[in-house]
């Protein structure tokens, strides 16, 4: 028995099949891809250790921790501010390897680190009509000049707590919500993008 491998499932896997949704003609206005290829961890500075955490992150990952709700990334590691002295850290590609353990070691005594890799559904959303679709739920101003590259916000979409991050200069956004809400998040997104046509791509797995 012990040799049976556990086959992981992505949060969206049982909720939606890749394919075209909503308006069927023309190019899809909204493109969605599930990103199940990231290791995630929450980092909370210990009492009074915010500065020390920043230093440790600088030396371990060569990143300057954002003080506010922003994402900063390099070499496959991204720190996103989610609260005062709190970050959600994502690692992808080669950086995934033992990432939570490495992070824990780098921040030992300075921050609490907790693995959250399985706790979230992560959807990367883009496409020519992405802002129109997102406006149907995201109650923050996503105007490209306001919600600039790297901007992040924790907020509510259709009563679902989400973290939205603009992950680059292009209009590409990452939506993160609790894993158990993947189906509801998808239902909102698919409905909101229906008039523009939505294409759900194959998930990216880790």
């Amino acid at each position, binding site marked *: 028995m012990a040799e049976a491998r556990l086959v992981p499932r992505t949060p969206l896997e049982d909720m939606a099949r890749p394919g075209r949704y909503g308006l069927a003609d023309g190019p899809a206005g909204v493109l969605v891809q599930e990103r199940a290829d990231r290791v995630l961890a929450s980092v909370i500075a210990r009492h009074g250790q915010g500065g020390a955490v920043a230093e440790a992150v600088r030396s371990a990952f060569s990143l300057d921790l954002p003080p506010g709700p922003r994402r900063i990334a390099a070499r496959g590691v991204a720190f996103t501010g989610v609260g005062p002295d709190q970050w959600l850290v994502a690692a992808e590609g080669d950086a995934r390897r033992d990432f939570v353990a490495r992070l824990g070691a780098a921040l030992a005594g300075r921050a609490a680190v907790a*693995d959250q890799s*399985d706790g979230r559904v992560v959807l990367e959303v883009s496409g020519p009509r992405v802002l129109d679709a997102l406006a149907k739920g995201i109650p923050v101003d996503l105007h490209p000049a306001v919600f600039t590259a790297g901007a992040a916000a924790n907020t509510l979409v259709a009563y679902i707590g989400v973290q939205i991050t603009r992950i680059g200069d292009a209009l590409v956004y990452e939506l993160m919500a609790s894993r158990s809400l993947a189906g509801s998040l998808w239902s909102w997104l698919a409905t*909101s993008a229906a008039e523009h046509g939505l294409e759900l791509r194959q998930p990216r797995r880790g």
Partner: protein
Amino acid sequence: MAAIGQALRLSSGGQIDRGRALGFTFDGQPYQGFSGDTLASALVASGVRLVGRSFKYHRPRGILSAGGEEPNALVELRTGARREPNTRATLAELYDGLEATSQNRWPSLGFDVLALNGLLAPVLVAGFYYKTFMWPAGLWERLYEPMIRRAAGLGRAAAAADPDHYEKAFAFCDVLVIGSGPAGLAAALAAGRAGARVILAEEDFACGGRLLAERQEIDGRPAAQWVAAALAELGALPHVRLMPRTTVFGTFDHGTYGALERVADHLPVPPPHTVRQRSWRITAKRAVLAAGALERPLVFPGNDRPGVMLAGAVRSYLNRFAAVPGGDMVVFTCNDDGWRTAHDATAAGLRVAAVIDARPQVAARVRQDSVGRAILGGRVVGVQRGRGVHGVTIVDADGRRATIACDLLAMAGGWSPVVNLTCHLGGRPVWDEARAAFLPGPLPPGMRVAGAAAGDLTLARCLAAGAAAGAAAAEELGFKSAAARAPRADDEPAAITPLWFVAGAGKAFVDFQNDVTVSDVRLAVREGFRSVEHLKRYTTLGMATDQGKTANVNGLAILAEASGRGIAAVGTTMFRPPYSPVAIGAIAGHHRGKDFRPTRLPPSHAWAAERGAVFVETGPWLRAQWYPLPGETDWLASVSREVRATRAGAGVCDVSTLGKIDLQGRDCGAFLDRVYTGMFSTLAVGKARYGLMLREDGIVMDDGTASRLAPDHYFMTTTTANAGKVMQHLEFCHQVLWPALDVQMVSVSDQWAQFSLAGPRTRDLLQKLVDRQHDLANDAFPFMAAREITVLGGEFARLFRISFSGELAYEISIPARHGDALIRAIMAAGAEFGITPYGTEALGVMRVEKGHVAGNELNGQTTARDLGLGRMMSTRKDYIGRVAAARPAFHEADRWGFVGLRPVNPAQRLYAGAHFLPQGAPATEAYDLGYMTSVAYSPMRGQWIGLGLIARGPARIGERVIAHDPVRSGDIPVEVCHPVHFDPDGGRMHG
């Protein structure tokens, strides 16, 4: 039936597309109109005068206005499940195939039986119903009320579910401009040119406001050309968003505006994937209200007859829609603007029989001779009618009566600025005597008002004020606006001497829709309803679907006169959102049906669905309730099987829904000591402990376990129901009460799939899954042990020896991606031990058998002592709720305490919610001893068992009482027993 032609359509002019004819029906009769029409304008062009019946007297009514203020022309639009009652014909954009029906009449619009109410009119005065229908008392619900209810109401709503879809959206801008008349367009241009993000919202499907209805010029060219150029320029500005068909319906706090976009109402049905309407929440740093002004009717006998129309509306129909509301017109006015209607009508080829101006003098500039007879200082005192207007009776300045034949009476009572949106935060408009209008009072933060909405009635001033407001709003936000030349336009005359009502015989209507007359207002005053708000409520003036847009100012002016006060002293009634009525579906957006609220699914959901589990909504979660097997038709059979199998061998249940909180830091122990009643700082690493949390008022809030994974690392579970509440509470305790403690906490509820494995064979089962190096023997992994382990060859997991079922039991956690695989692995590994998945029902049965408290007992009314958990309240430390829990009432001897219950006759079923009475006592509250909190059929005992709260609690064990359940099962004798119904010494759990 052949379509009735558009006999009253001008051959040229207007903003309609004569190339696109549209067919529609009204009361089943086919008609035609053009693209660009409203239903109202198409009816006008087709010569339809009678469009509805009034609310109370069922008087025939025609179209009064050309906009959203319409009180009369309300129709049922569409049919079947899409039927929309009370739709204003004046706002309904015509589409091909439109079906409209008149309402509030029987059997037909032309012959309405309830028009007999007109005969009863002398009795049916304001508030008559407060004075009668009282005898005999029993007849109210049986006779009078049903009769009133059937007569009241307007259109018929569809009973069926609305087949269309709706959505919500959020928008942000620097400057929100409300209204696209000259003031709004100028404001949007000024702010947009300065670089501000502008939203221009317009209720109408066409932008331009009054400019669409007037024959005015701007910069020397027809206003329509200026509008087109302005829209083109705005459309080209990247930061400007034009939103036609969008009504801003409410002003809310801090720059929040509610708006309703009618996305597909101008189409027969919404195209696929398109919503019918979209509700917007607009957050604007600044707003310019340029909502214009609404014309007031004049109040004189017969003013409600079909064929009596607002003068400005006549211009709209002529100039915008090229539709002719009448051939022979009389204008009745008290201000300069009324004369414009006469001029425009003449220009359109109508005969203007007379202009009757109540003022003795009128500037020569206003009065030109193209308009037929001019009667200054005159009044209309009656309307001759058949099906429509035949003529008017007038009294001239010298008191001479005369009759003038006509088929259209245009009335111009002056203009009321649309101040509604300035008042939604509580501001009150102020009366301006010179302009005879209420002007905006204190404004909501960030709002400006421009144009006719601010009382600036002339075009030149509207353009200038709009531009100034737009520029100022942008400049306040740091944008630089280049000084632009204001467009040139007329300062058309706009003098007024208000005329509030004309005395005479016959009903003079103030509120057309609610049939409120001058005599109703006076009666109310006579009876002491002198406050304007009392007047409104007593007469219902202004309470109909138009909210008195055309009626209120006239009404309160008559009140002022009748009560000997000035209009300023009387004031207005409160303005409230929505500015115009909003479909409930639109505000709900897509939150209906299954999408009313999100659904959380545990990691085993897909697997459980494959097995045919029956699911149940528990708070935000959908959980497996039981897993029926083929042949099982009764839920009780399935649940009992699950319990038996678990207690006999092994059962598994997904408990991932529990709240899970990761706590790290030096002071976690100290922190938990303060939030739990028990001690946690002394908990050994590798152990778990049951914990009870109180609210600060001493009542139990939640229970759960906390495990110590490392000296400065704890893992807490909460109940499913209270997960969010507990997290918030802990954050409060940490951030607000004890911020100096070194505690870091984060919810990891979704990170872990967690399964409860219960039953005597679970150790054997686990042994097959857990990697060999972890010793699960009773000594090595005793009751309440908590460890990090690996399973299935190195997969990280956590194992807790915790039991809710009273069996040898474990909870195993694994990162959620493996939840599905783990449950399958457990099932495979457990086959030889008879592994059985069990759902929330069996979970509940086992906890009742074991006498554990859960949601039904932790109901926000019980203390730890009530629940028999008093020993968990440490006396060695302070904790949340400790002091309040010591209040005298919480220690009274006859407080309801926690016990078990069994039916005296083991064949009888128990019901939760039954109250306890002493045997033989009468069923009155004086003997109420408590109630049954939970029940279950215990397959282990072969009978129903219960838990409950009863006065003096455990002291009653052995007593028999009655479980009194008159709403369901009647009386059942029960015996009070210990709450632990099964395996009282807990041997199985420790085994």
